[in-house]
């Protein structure tokens, strides 16, 4: 049998509209991965380096799973790769590992695509003996991902949608408030999703003084601490998310700045997307 080449896509699934799961052969990264870590990949020559969280690993096959939402040119094009194709470059596992400990009751909150990075963390928290309460928020029923996987790890799973097409209608913070009202003792909260959601969670839990960890997703290039593009202010001092994070105490994050900086290339991103959609190249392939 021909030896499998690293970075080859060995399985592909569409989990929801615009959300793709790629299982990629990367035995060394797989062997080293710990919850909370990510890779930086570059799909093709001339491609951008983008960070994606390792959502799952398959040690037997030496493969990692990346789950991403197509929001712009790079993630759209990435979704056109097929089984047998290769991503050109992939470095990892990057970032610090999630602090895992037996805390007691851990509430895991995922918003949309944030559910994917939440999966390995939930798994590790469960394995450490925590009681897991998971709150997942999605746009609508069609966008629900990883429900079965998360359900297996959770003592309680609550799904809500923006439009009420599945579960309650509302926001993850509504559920969190309900948990507070019910007097449930919460020892730690992990929140991953859009910055606006993480900020809202942080505001709520600050008042309740519950330790809350958020995973930040700034724009990155190298992922090795070399460019400073991913910098954020944490408790008044400058941190580089790629090496000091991506997880930080949500109560110490300068959220406005995080959101501000994500808008840096708005115009460029729109141009890249239009350009891509107009001149969509033939599907590129790197199968050997």
């Amino acid at each position, binding site marked *: 049998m021909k030896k499998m080449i690293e970075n080859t896509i060995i399985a592909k699934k569409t989990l929801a509209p615009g959300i793709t799961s790629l299982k990629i052969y990367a035995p060394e990264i797989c062997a080293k991965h710990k919850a909370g870590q990510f890779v930086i990949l570059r799909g093709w020559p001339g491609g951008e380096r983008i960070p994606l969280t390792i959502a799952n690993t398959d040690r037997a096959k030496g493969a990692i799973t990346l789950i991403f939402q197509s929001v712009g*040119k790079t993630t759209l094009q990435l979704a056109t790769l097929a089984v047998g194709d290769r991503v050109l*470059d992939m470095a990892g596992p990057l970032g610090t590992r999630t602090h895992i400990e037996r805390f007691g009751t851990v509430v895991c909150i995922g918003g949309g695509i944030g559910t994917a990075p939440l999966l390995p963390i939930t798994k590790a928290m469960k394995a450490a003996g925590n009681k897991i309460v998971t709150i997942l928020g999605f746009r609508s029923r069609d966008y629900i991902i990883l429900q079965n996987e998360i359900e297996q790890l959770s003592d309680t799973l609550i799904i809500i949608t923006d439009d009420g097409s599945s579960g309650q209608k509302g926001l993850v913070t509504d559920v969190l408030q309900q948990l507070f009202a019910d007097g449930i003792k919460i020892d730690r909260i992990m929140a991953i999703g859009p910055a606006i959601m993480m900020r809202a969670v942080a505001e709520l839990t600050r008042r309740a003084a519950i330790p809350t960890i958020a995973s930040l997703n700034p724009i990155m*290039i190298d992922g*090795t601490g*070399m*460019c400073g*593009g991913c910098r954020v*202010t944490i408790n008044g001092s400058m941190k580089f998310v790629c090496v000091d994070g991506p997880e930080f105490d949500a109560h110490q994050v300068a959220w406005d700045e995080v959101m*501000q900086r994500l808008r840096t290339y708005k115009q460029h991103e729109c141009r890249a997307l239009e350009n891509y959609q107009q001149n969509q190249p033939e599907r590129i392939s790197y199968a050997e």
Partner: protein
Amino acid sequence: MLSKKERLQIAPVKMREQRPEQRIHNQNEVPLGYSPQEAILEAERCLQCKNAPCINGCPVEVDIPGFIGEIARGNFSAAFFKVSEKNVLPAICGRVCPQEEQCQAECTVTKVLKSAERSVNIGKLERFVADYAREKGMRPRVAHQAKSGKKVAVIGSGPAGLTVAGDLARLGHEVTLFEALHVVGGVLVYGIPEFRLPKSIVEYEIDALQQSGVGLKCNYVIGKIKSIKEMLREFDSVFIGTGAGLPRFMEIPGENLIGVYSANEYLTRANLMHAFDFPRSDTPILSGDTVAVVGGGNVAMDAARTALRAGAKKVTLVYRRSEKEMPARLEEIEHARQEGVRFQFLVNPVRILADQNEWVSGMELVRMKLGEPDSTGRRRPVVVPGSEFTMKTDLVIMAIGNSPNPLLLHETPELSINEWGGIIADPETGATSIAGVFAGGDIVLGAATVILAMGQGRRAAQSMHTYMMHSNGKKV
């Protein structure tokens, strides 16, 4: 044969350059190189000093009179073989070495004529022979020793790592080079711009390494994917050359506004990711009509000149000391000035200002004056009270220095580091606090130069060779 006096009378041969008005609209190299006639004429200026003081100024000890003598006789191939005995990256050094502080500072002609500008142009001649060899497709002619059976890991592919890899491969060891980024070359590819060091040249020199049997592994962030401990199980010795890739910021208000870049990020987007080809290349970069660059070293000059090429109408470099203290190479300052970069000396930003959308709109600065000399011997700048003023700008690029890259060091607590975060290594051997682990280049020196990094690599390679051949394969 020319007499010494006749030689001293030959005027230094200037290298032709692209005109400033033209070159700010392209990425092509600025100096165009010597013709064979120009190179021979310049080579005739060398006095062929018996004691060759120039060699003392070269950290890798290139046989300077030897190769220049061959040029003077028109034997360009022989000149190249001489250079490449000692220097694995001659086309690069000929371009970016601060020769006026290195080999040329020691040159007898410099001393006799009492003028740094009239020294023998050793670097330009070195560039000439390396370019000649590349155009002819020539490769260094070096004997490779028999296979030693020893395995070496080199971490980081900047000039320090490349030198170690080249030297140890020649000595018969099996070398694997690990690089975190997707291309090999370190600062040579992500930092120094195309117009100063064409990337095709770096590729050619790296190709030579590969031909000599060095294995290249890109996308390996050592410390994350493999620890030093694990590497020592796989390899007989390890070299760390991870560079000074941690950008410093000023820690002033407004530094995280949109439109503030570190020079590393700005240059990486431009050089490594080809952001100027956007959207043909996928990585974007912000552009502005007016750009302010903070700093006074080579990095600041590169950022300022890159901004001009990106279409900025006005680029101002602000530096907190006076022109005399600027650490950049004279040639770079001169090139920047010819291209229209403006300089403001003795000023320092205290705050970056924003418009209503939190985009950079300007800077508030203070004037400085020079006080007592500091530990480096340069006069320390002090703030002139009440001298605040503002300056409009669309982009700010911070080029105030880089510190040793801490990523690998954080993951390797056994490694002793100094107060600036660099690895403590024996200056003679490169040995670190871990047996079998050696280090050199910017990770040890702090941000220094290509040739100093190479010099450290050269010495480390020697001691790694000795270490491996005398430890009988046993881990000490």
